């Protein structure tokens, strides 16, 4: 029993999925970008030449130069330093969103799929209703009521974000429930909780990983849109959406100021999406061929 699971997890190194993933160019590019972003976030203080909020008012609204690689904004803050520090916001938003939504959605989904019956239909009614709701609008309303800020944005997006995880894990639990090793675990008297934690969850880890790599960049995009609207992370925080909000006041005079944060968002999101696509294809034997 445990052997099977150990085999399943332990063999990833040699599994066809891993071999396929290793050969995929998207995996390489995606992984490279993601690692670059993570290390930029960790070493932001060393990479950025200035503090992200330090003002040089007499040098405001400048174009790129050797002193200010990407120019300065209206308050003379170094845009390059702000972009570098922005990686922290992007990663924090993405990671926190995934952690919060998954820790709500995964247990609910497993419960629904494994228990079945009334529990299942109750949870799935909620999931269906939540999925039909426009998440961004609900999130905006939440922030309008409770105020902007990083944590409120995460909570606001989690109100609807958990449902996708619940639906995925319910499907997984339903499929795995019928496997022989689950029956065997029951036969040797394992408790339901143990079965779900030790057998069902580990065996649905690959679609869960794919889901994580797909929802993380989506959360970064939506959160940056909220900041751009002024209902997310607020200036002067070096969050890219918030930077764009401030830059559009004089879009025509200093367009580069609006270009850099956008490109930063694209690079990060693209990196995660490359990774997600490669993982999805690697885990899906039909797509391998």
């Amino acid at each position: 029993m445990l052997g099977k699971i150990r085999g399943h997890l332990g063999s990833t190194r040699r599994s066809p999925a891993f071999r396929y993933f290793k050969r995929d160019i998207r995996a390489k590019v995606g992984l490279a970008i993601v690692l670059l972003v993570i290390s930029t976030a960790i070493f932001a203080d060393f990479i950025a030449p200035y503090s992200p909020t330090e003002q040089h008012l007499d040098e405001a609204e400048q174009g790129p130069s050797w002193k200010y690689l990407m120019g300065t904004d209206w308050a003379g803050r170094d845009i390059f330093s702000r972009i570098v520090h922005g990686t922290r916001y992007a990663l924090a938003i993405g990671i926190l969103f995934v952690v919060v939504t998954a820790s709500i959605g995964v247990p609910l989904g497993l419960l629904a799929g494994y228990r079945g019956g009334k529990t299942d239909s109750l949870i799935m009614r909620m999931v269906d209703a939540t999925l039909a709701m426009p998440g961004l609008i609900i999130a905006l309303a939440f922030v309008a009521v409770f105020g902007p800020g990083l944590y409120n944005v995460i909570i606001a997006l989690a109100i609807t974000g958990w449902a996708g995880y619940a639906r995925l894990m319910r499907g997984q639990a339903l499929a795995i429930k019928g496997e022989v090793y689950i029956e065997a675990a029951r036969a040797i008297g394992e408790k339901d909780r143990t079965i779900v934690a030790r057998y069902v969850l580990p065996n649905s880890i690959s679609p869960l990983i794919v889901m994580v790599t797909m929802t993380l960049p989506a959360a970064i995009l939506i959160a940056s849109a909220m900041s751009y609207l002024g209902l997310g992370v607020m200036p002067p925080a070096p969050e890219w959406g918030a930077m764009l909000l401030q830059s559009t006041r004089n879009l025509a005079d200093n367009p580069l100021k609006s270009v850099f944060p956008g490109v930063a968002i694209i690079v990060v999101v693209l990196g995660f999406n490359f990774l997600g696509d490669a993982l999805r294809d690697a885990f899906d034997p039909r797509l391998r061929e």
Partner: protein
Amino acid sequence: MYGFIIRRLLLLIPIMLAVSIVVFMLLPLTGDPERQVLLAQGVQDPSVEQLEAVRHQYGYHRPLYIQYIRWMTGYPPADPNENEDAGVMSRGLLRGDLGFSHKFQTPVLDKMLEALPNTLILMAAAFMISLALGLLLGVISALRRKTWVDYTGMGAALFGVSIPNYWQGLMAILIFGIWLGWLPVEGYHGLSYLILPALTLGTAQAGSLARMTRSSMLDVLRQDYIRTARAKGLRERTVIYTHALKNAFIPVATLLFLRLPYLFGGTVVIETVFNWPGMGTLLVKHGMGAAGGMGKDWFIVQGGVLMFLLMAVTANLLCDIAYAYLNPKIRYGEGG
């Protein structure tokens, strides 16, 4: 079929109830509704007397459930002995009263009905663009799998889903509006004003649609009946057009409906970027006081959120009914 529709309509009752409670609670959740009302009227620093007067005028001194019932139905009516003012109080949501907007000095519903057609026009145009572009790109990429056509198409689609939509709008404004001067970029005073926002919104949705279409098409092309069709010597065109496409569109159609909530969200953002006089701008700018709006107007927020949630619920209902119509398994099943 009718049984299914009736069951589905009955399910609407708890959903609508939940939606109405959420929308109602937006104002009480702010903590001090009377201050919010005064802020919307332009009173920055209200005195205790002013707050007290508004509290009674709007009936905020009553328990929440009474306020809710009154907000929904208009009952119990305003009580002059409690200094409640029938003039400012909503006559009840069920009678189509969403309250009075102090910003615009008009009933919120009038403002909503003014903005709704503009939003629907924008969404319809964007939907068409995304449909045409997304399906075309998806089908061609699937048919030319693992060729440069596929790689270019899917590269573009991936890029499309990775671009922040509002930034794409900003760049469109910069390039086509400011530098080239080809198209107007703000407001809505004619068809040419529709082009940039609709294209921005449409291309964003097209990316994910193309990706879904491609994988759905590839799924179908792998099926036995396609092999059979080819084996019996049908021309490739016939196989693709009459066998593959039809079957590939079924899951795509479902996904289209499932993605409608994203279209609503996208509309709100794009409307704000282009200052499009629709529901999104009304909600975010004039209601929530963001994106250059001055101050909040909670009755507009309530109305706007309600309108979008109603649209989402309706779209979902239509999707379910259409799906049941196409798929008898659901119609006669446990009722889904």
